C-alpha cells in the first residue's frame, strides 16, 4: 500500500506543495487522495491500472485526461459513467470499477435513497 507514483520533488516545479489529504474508496478499499485533485490522479498515484472494463471485458484506464474521450469513466458515489479525469475527489467518495455501462442497481439494494 506504500506504493505511490507521486512526484515529490521536481526540478522546475520544486517540492510538492502540502495539500490536505482525504480518503476515497476504490471498490471498498481506502485510497489516499489530495484534496482538489481529480479521481483519476488519485488512482494513478496509488498504482491503479484498470478503471473499468468494456461490455466485452476489455480493460480501460484514461486516454485524454481532460474530459473529452470518456475512457476513464467509473461509478462514483453510485452514479455510473462519471468522467474521473474531471471529477474532483471528496472525502469518503466511493469509486467503483465499472463493468460495461455500469448500473445503478446496487444502490437500491444497499438501502441508499
Amino acid at each position: 500500500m506504500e506504493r505511490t507514483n507521486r512526484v515529490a520533488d521536481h526540478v522546475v516545479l520544486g517540492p510538492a506543495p502540502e495539500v490536505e489529504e482525504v480518503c476515497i474508496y476504490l471498490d471498498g478499499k481506502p485510497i489516499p487522495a489530495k484534496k482538489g485533485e481529480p479521481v483519476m490522479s488519485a488512482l494513478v498515484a496509488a498504482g491503479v491500472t484498470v478503471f473499468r472494463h468494456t461490455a466485452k471485458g476489455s480493460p480501460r484506464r484514461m486516454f485524454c485526461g481532460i474530459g473529452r474521450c470518456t475512457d476513464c469513466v467509473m461509478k462514483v458515489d453510485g452514479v455510473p459513467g462519471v468522467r474521473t479525469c474531471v471529477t474532483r475527489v471528496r472525502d469518503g467518495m466511493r469509486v467503483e470499477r465499472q463493468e460495461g455501462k455500469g448500473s445503478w442497481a446496487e444502490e437500491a439494494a444497499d438501502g441508499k435513497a
Partner: protein
Amino acid sequence: MEKHKPVVVVGAGPAGLCAAIELKKAGAPVILLDENDKPGGQLFKQIHKFFGSREHKAGTRGFTIGTSLLDESLKLGIDVRLETEVVGVDPGLRVWAVRQRASSELIEASRLILATGATENALSFPGWTLPGVMTAGCAQTLINVYRVLPGKRVLIIGSGNVGVIVGYQLMQSGAEVVGIVEALPSLGGYGVHTAKLARAGVPFYTGTTVVRAEGVESLERATIAQVDGSFKPIASTERTLDVDTICLAVGLTPSLELSSLAGCRTIYVPELGGRMPLHDEYMRSSVQEVYVVGDTAGVEEASTAMEEGRLAGVHAAWSLGYMSDDDMKERVDETKQRLNALRQGVFGQKRFNAKARIIQESQLR
C-alpha cells in the same frame, strides 16, 4: 442597444483570456465562459520556456504567463463564469450555457468570440485501448498539474514539439523515455527541445511507426517497425520494447462544435490541424458577429493564440463603438506585427503561409 449586450467569450485559455482582457480594457461588457473549474486552459501544463521575442514573453514558462493573465483578468474585474459549458448557439447569437451541470441560462450576445481550443488526435493500432496508452497531453496533465507519474517506461509516438516537450517533462518527473518514434523520415520538433532528449541519450526512431501494443490488463510492451514508402510497416524490421506507457503525440484537430453550430464556414488546412473555421485578418468568421481565435482557428501555439485573442478583442470592441478608428488601427497593426514575428523561421513560415491562404480565401467567399 447592441452595444449594451455583452460580448461572450467561450474558453478561458490563452486566446480567450486575452480577448476578454482587450474588451474589458476598452470598456465593453464581456462575459468569459469556461467548462473547467479553473481558467487558463492548457497554459498551466506548460512548464517549459516559451520562444519568441521579449514582448512575447520568451524565456518565460507557460504557467507563469498563465498566472499573469489571470492576475490581469482579476484586476480588471472580468466576469469569468467557470464550470459553465456552452451547449448551443442560435442564429440570433443567443448562447445557451449550462452551469455546473445543473442550471441553464441563455445569454444574448452582441459578439461571440470562440476560443475553444483543439483536441488531441488518436492513433489506432492493435492494443491502443490498453491502459497505459494515452495522449501526450494526458501524461502532461498528470505530471505537471497533478504531479503524478502515469508510468515508468515510456514510448512516445510523434517527434513534433508536443512529443519532445512531453518526453522531456516525463524525464523531469522521473520516468524513462525508451524512445521517440516518428513515421516521417525527419524529426518534427524545434531543435532546442529535440536536443534536450538527444543529449540525454533518448533514441529517436525515424521512418518508424508503432505496430502493436500488448499486455494482459495493461500495457507491457510495444512493437515498432520501420515503414516503407507508403507508410506500411516492414515486418522484418519489427522490434519489441518493454514499456508501461505509450504517449501519442500525433497532432491536434481544432474543436469545431460551437463554430459549426454558429454556422461558420470551414476550410481544410492540413498544416494547421485539418478542418477549421474560415476567418479574416481580424479573426472574424464567415458569420460577421462571430470571431474564432487560438487553436480552434488553426492549431499553433499559446503565443500566437494570445495575439489572435487580442486581435479579435480589439476589433470586436471597435465594431461595437468602444474604440476609435485610429486606436483600433494602431492596436491591430502592432498585434499583427507581433503575430508575423511569431510566424517566422522554418516552422513559422509554413504557418504564416497557411494563415495568409485562409485570409485570402475568406475574402473570395
